[in-house]
Every structure is written in C-alpha cells, then in structure tokens.
C-alpha cells in the first residue's frame, strides 16, 4: 500500500491514463482546449466510463484505483474501441 500519494504521482497517473485512453479509446487530445494536466473533465470522464464499462469495472468516470490497476495490466496493443488502422 502506498504510504502517501504525492502530487507528482497523481500527475503521472493522469498522464498515463490520458495516453491509455488515447491509445485504446480514441481519446483525442488535439483540439481539446487544455493546458497540460487540465484536460476537459467531461471528455476524460466519458472516456473513462467507456473504458470501465468495456472492461467490466465499476463505472465511476473517475480515475480510481481499480481503473488504474487495469490500465497497468499487460495487454494487447489493438485499440478496444477504435477504427482499425
């Protein structure tokens, strides 16, 4: 169990989640009016919900521990919900 959650690791988690959602759920950062670390909350929430629903997780729309755990599991590089390139 982590002793503390530093701000730095939370930032890393969000960055990691963004990359994950971009790769596998067609989450497009381009065009989203953001400064880094301030992604449009609704868009990110929608994509998290999409991912949680697909993978049978509790659909919270939040980057909770079980969602992060799932994102960190070794997996196939084919997008789950994406036009196949």
């Amino acid at each position: 169990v982590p002793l503390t959650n530093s701000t730095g690791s939370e930032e890393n988690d969000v960055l990691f989640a963004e990359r994950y959602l971009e790769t596998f759920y067609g989450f497009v950062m381009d065009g989203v009016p953001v400064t880094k670390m301030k992604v449009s909350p609704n868009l990110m929430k929608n994509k998290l919900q999409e991912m949680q629903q697909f993978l049978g997780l509790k659909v919270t729309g939040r980057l909770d521990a079980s969602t992060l755990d799932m994102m960190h599991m070794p997996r196939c590089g084919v997008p789950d919900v994406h036009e196949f390139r």
Partner: protein
Amino acid sequence: TLAGRPVWRKRFLTYRINSYTPDMKPADVDYAIQKAFQVWSDVTPLKFRKIHSGEADIMIGFASGAHGDFNPFDGRGGIIAHAFGPGPGIGGDTHFDEAETWTANYRGTNLFLVAVHELGHSLGLGHSSDPKAIMFPTYSYVDPNTFRLSSDDVRGIQSLYGGPERRQPPSHPDSTESATCNPILSLDAATTVGNKIIFFKDRYFGWRNPESPKSNISLISSFWPNLPSGIQAAYEIGDRNQVFFFKDDKYWVISNLRPQRLYPKNVRSLGFPNFVEKIDAAVFNPLLYKTYFFVGSQYWRYDERRQLMDPGYPKFITKAFPGIGPKIDAVYYNNRHYYFFQGSVVSEYDVLSHRVTKRLKHDIKLGC
C-alpha cells in the same frame, strides 16, 4: 469482431515466423505458435500451413520499440503484442514485444496464450468485454494444458467463418477403397465416458451408445487440445466423473470433461516399475474399485481407494483372463462385462463368471 468485419476470403492460410525471441528455444516458439493456430482451426474450417520463405498471409515476429508499423512497442509491461486484422500486406501480421520475457510456462508472459489472442485479431476478432474470453484485452495466465476458448470466442470466430468442416460421407458407402470410411483394424484405446463408449485411433476419437452401432468421429485435439494424438489406453471412474488417458509413460486426467491441472504425470507415480514404457490398455472395475493395466502379455492391478498398486503383480493375462490375450489393444467395462479388443475382434468377458461370453468382429469405422 473488428470494425468493418474484415475476414479472410480463403480457407487455407499460410504463416511464417520471420524472427524469434532469444527468451525461448526456436522449437518452443514454433510449437506455441502452431498450437495457437490449432486452437482456431479446431473451431473453424480454416487451415494453416507454415512456410519458411517468402510472404505469408500472416507474418509473425518479435520486435522492440518502433518497428515500422506506426504502432511502436512501449518496453517491458504495458503493450505486450498486437496484430492486424485480415487483409493484404501487413494485414493479419502479428508482432510480439521483445521487451517482454516470453516463456512456455507460467513465468513471464506465456507465448501460447498471447499468440491465441493475437491470431484471433489476425483472423478478424476484436476485443471481448468478457473476462473469460481469450480476446479480453488484458493478459492473465491460465494453464495452457487446460486452456479452452470461451463460448464468446467461439461464437465470435464462427460468426465470421462458420464451424469446422464435417467430414463428407463417401459417395460409395460400401466401398472399402474409400479413404473416408475405413474400418479400423485395431483400436488404440477404448473407455466409457458417462453413457457413451469412446474409442481412440491415431488423431481421432469416436463415441457411440452401447446399444447403437452408429458412431461419431472427431479430432482428439478439437475436444481436448491438451491431449496428444495416439492415446494408448484410457479408463473411466464413473462415480468420480474422471477419465484417465495414457500415452507412452505419461497420463492425463479429465474430470467432468474438463482437463485437470498438473497433468501429464509419469506412470511411475502409479507404482509401475521403470521398465514399463507404455500402457497397452486399462479398465476400471467398479465392483472391486480397482483398475487393471495391461502391458504386453502381463497386467497390473491398482487399488483406486488406497491409491496403491496391489502387491503380487504383474501376472500373465492368459492365466487370469481365460480366452483373452496374450496382448490386447483396448478394453472397456460396461454392465458387468469387459470388452477386450484384439485386432478386429472384440471379446465380451463376464467379470463374475470369468469367461468369454461372446466373440465377434467389431465394426468401428472412421469417417462414416
């Protein structure tokens, strides 16, 4: 299935392994990939052939980082493999991330399991949201010996290609020249499974009801992918729903039709001496709760309750089973009788009166 439902328009596909991982012996890589293809060919009409040069439909390789397909790998963990759906060129190709540690067992990342998943993509399957499916996108280890496709996987692939081809009945059913309907001159093994009689020959097994001459044939690998071809002996303990299969010095157990973990085991663990290299036939007697193992002209008796070989064995078959032997191919028990197969002859043997009660030519055929 993948967006647009791409599929292969032909049933005979080629594959080529154009690079190997240093983590495993090339022969183990070849075997894992071949078994992964077999998982899919067993449930579809598709057939796969390995080629060693030129462009195959499905090119398979190991690569690190950026490797020329605009989908770079990301180092250890994370993405471990990917594949392209059916199509020309890169279509169907399958890549494994060399940064992973590839194995043939539970350590690291099991190549067979990942290959089954990736080849599912190569054939046109997308990701499944069923965690029991091999097409679920995250890796988790299951014993390759007991691995089976989930019903979701099978439904998915059969929605694209249909089920496996049934062997066509011969145009002249009476013709002994027909390659698809040959009487079996000698069986490899026989046993009951529930209310069915199961018999084995080469890569095939057949089953039928005791009262009916009509039999069905299937590939052993299509039902039990973990079992080898050429099963030499088999027996059932009905009240435990267990069936034992023997080949050479190894044996496997299925329980309630599911392969059991930790098999195959060596027959020495049953108490056989070192010189026993294979079992010709085996049969369980539920009245005694003992199993008879036939090896050459001799037999052993195993106490299934005590899990020990009975002392005083081996004995000669011809002395204990008048009219049977000296060697037998296969035997099963049904309704207080043993049915011994020797060549094309089957002998019905009464276990209480210890005598042959009927002897006739068996009529088991393949492909009918």
